[in-house]
């Protein structure tokens, strides 16, 4: 199972709300989240780690793609 979230351009705390919703919906597996600021990379990573997910990210131009696994 995999889930994709596009949280680009959203104000706090929307990216975290969407990320948490996706992680909780899936329970385990892989979730991919697109954001466009380092702030949201940190925020979403912190939220995911609290829920026990592993986190990493890649930067491509203006977009950061976070990958969460559990």
């Amino acid at each position, binding site marked *: 199972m995999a889930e994709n979230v596009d949280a680009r*351009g*959203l*104000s706090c705390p929307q990216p975290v709300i969407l990320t948490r919703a996706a992680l909780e919906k899936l329970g385990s597996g892989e979730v991919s989240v697109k954001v466009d*600021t380092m702030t949201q990379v940190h925020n979403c990573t912190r939220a995911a780690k609290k829920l026990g997910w592993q986190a990493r*990210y890649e930067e491509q131009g203006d977009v950061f793609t976070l990958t969460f696994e559990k």
Partner: protein
Amino acid sequence: MSKPNDFFATLAGIIVVGLVIGGLAATLQRIGNPANMGVCVACFTRDIAGALGLHRAGIVQYLRPEIPAFCLGSFLAALVFREFRPRTGSAPVIRFILGMFAMIGALIFLGCPWRAMLRLAGGDWNAILGIAGLIVGISIGVGFLRGGFNLGRSYPSRTVAGLVLPAVMFVLLILAVLYPQFGEDGRAALFRSAKGPGAASATVVASTLAGLVIGFLAQRTRFCTVGGIRDAILMRDFHLLSGVAAFLVAAFVMNVVYGQFHPGFTRGVSDAGEIINQPAAHTTHWLNFGGMILAGLSFTLAGGCPGRQVFLSGEGDGDAGLFVLGMLTGAAVAHNFMMVATQSTAPYILAIGLVLVMIIGFMGRERLAPAR
């Protein structure tokens, strides 16, 4: 592949920065800024509105260097750490209106969330009502967020769109340093209070340096007073709130050290039998409480506290920039139409503001469009 490992993103990072900002705020009071107002984004933006002649309340007119320095400190941090990203397009006009009402609410209480903490740290117990109102307002905002409230996406924009607010702030900072006087009668181009809070200030150099340091550190840590309370309520995340708590503790400790802690709802009674209020404060509890409900709700819907909006504007967020301009306008409107503190129209604009911002909250609960 990499992962975030920046010290400023850690819990220790935000606590250290909260301590530094709180200590600087108390120190600015010690060296001249108004009592319990070392840094207040609402009050200082209001003072700038006065300096520019947008309102004519003679005791609160001074082009405070702290606000432009906040923006420029954040701008510098964003450049150094490659986080300057010009972006706009997330309901800018609504953000402008939210900025206005956030300011109007804050001025009924007489302080933004930062100053609410500083007032508490100085022993002004009226701040308890303000902070309680702030928590209620943020809670209402969290209700809207849970119901799907959002202001839509912003999109990457031209570099110039992100540079406009920092450029305006740079001009303001130059003006604050020069404080130009021209005209045959020596008439000031900028207004400057001769008495009252607007006449109390640290030196331009001290205010500018403190502002730059705070702006830089806050950009790195995303320090946000409203976000702290919001995250704690919304998802039991205490990261940002830890920074706010550190800010409060540092300001309190330094106030005690400096002899600036004077507990009470008032400062006692004068020889003439008149009650002496806490500095730039009033004791009408329901207005302190209600004003901050309006402010807390408006800040939450806009995504952050007034300081955070200034810092975001420094890193290229044009929508946050419009929120800041909304605050500037709101301050002018509030003073021009007697809406401040316990003035005659404050209760009416408070009621109107709460209704209008709630309408924005209800109407903003729309599904997100897919990203372009």
